[in-house]
């Protein structure tokens, strides 16, 4: 079971690989679209890679609720529990 800090670090790595954004720019309160400028296709790529990395399932209808990095970390953490 990964801690929230570990999930955040893993997510930052995935975002970095997809967008080239520095991992330290990926903070809990950052919005994927507004702050990190991540488009819908990149978001799906990040979701798919996060599912693989954390062994969770993030349904399509859930993706639109993941507005901030924190939303994603909390969802993954809950899904792992």
């Amino acid at each position: 079971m990964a801690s929230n800090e570990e999930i955040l670090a893993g997510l930052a790595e995935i975002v970095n690989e997809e967008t080239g954004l520095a991992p330290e720019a990926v903070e809990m309160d950052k919005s994927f679209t507004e702050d990190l400028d991540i488009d819908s296709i990149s978001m799906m790529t990040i979701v798919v890679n996060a599912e693989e990395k954390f062994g969770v399932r993030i349904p399509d209808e859930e993706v639109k609720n993941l507005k901030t990095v924190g939303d994603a970390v909390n969802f993954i953490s809950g899904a792992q529990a």
Partner: protein
Amino acid sequence: MSTPTLRQAPVNQYSRIQGIGAFRPDVIVTNEDVCQWIDSSDEWIRQRTGIITRHRAAADVSVIDMAEGAAREALEHAGIEASQLGAVIVSTVTHPYATPSAAAALADRLGATPAPAFDISAACAGYCYGIAQADALVRSGTATYVLVVGAEKLSDVIDNRERTISFLLGDGAGAVVIGPSETPGISPSVWGSDGSKWDAIGMTRSQLDARDLSLAARQSDASGDLALLEEAQELYPTIRQDGQTVFRWAVWEMAKVAQQALEDAGITAEDLVAFVPHQANMRIIDEMVKKLKLPESVTIARDIADAGNTSAASIPLATHRLLKENPSLSGGLALQIGFGAGLVFGAQVVVLP
């Protein structure tokens, strides 16, 4: 009375692609053209799809016309006459008649009559479905040579103002001749469907709904009010997709299918000379390449940049181009995978002609 012994067709041990042909229609639609119809930009479209232009067919060029152009080149490349064909298969979702088939007309035009002829409705997986069928027909001895054509005139089923898929689509046709071989030339097909995602890509309405709505519009104004008639014309079914669902399925599930095709072929990614995925979106192609961990020695088909997404035609068109630009790939192994509306998918490893 003794039971007579039934005769069955003698089998061919192996099959392979013997010739390939392509037809690219000559109307070029740029991203600037597309931006007249949707609020977008060249940069946005390139970034999200990798598409720079699409080829589209003029009004008087039909699916059968394009199929014929590609088929003639494939027959010539294979070095066989149309009269030697044991079956003609056309994969298409844009032949505008529910019946008769495009394949029957094509067979007649080519001089392949009375070869059996039929269409396959498997959207962007149609070409790989066709290869699966042709491979089985040739190896079972049911046919010696089979023509497989992927031909689409998607410009007939788009709504230019629609933002989910129309701007991706192009027209064209690609064809191959499959015949017997002394060495293995087509790996076991990994193919299937997932009808639980039937709604993910498809038409806005059925032909019957369009007919009923159109009749209602006419009846509501027997005088033939032009505005009503225009409205009725807009009822014609056009294509749309749920892009996010399709993207995720394509990247995640299709990488597994492609990997399975490699395993079933008894090879690894290092053995490939080329990867020819359905040309749906450059971002999907890039993600699949990453997921499959393809080595740099593998040439990746990226025909989509100029051709757009041509559904069943995209794999043979992209293969044709690869061979034209890199003749040394001939004889090497290519992994091909088609996936699309249904949802349906199909993949094989083939020896390039």
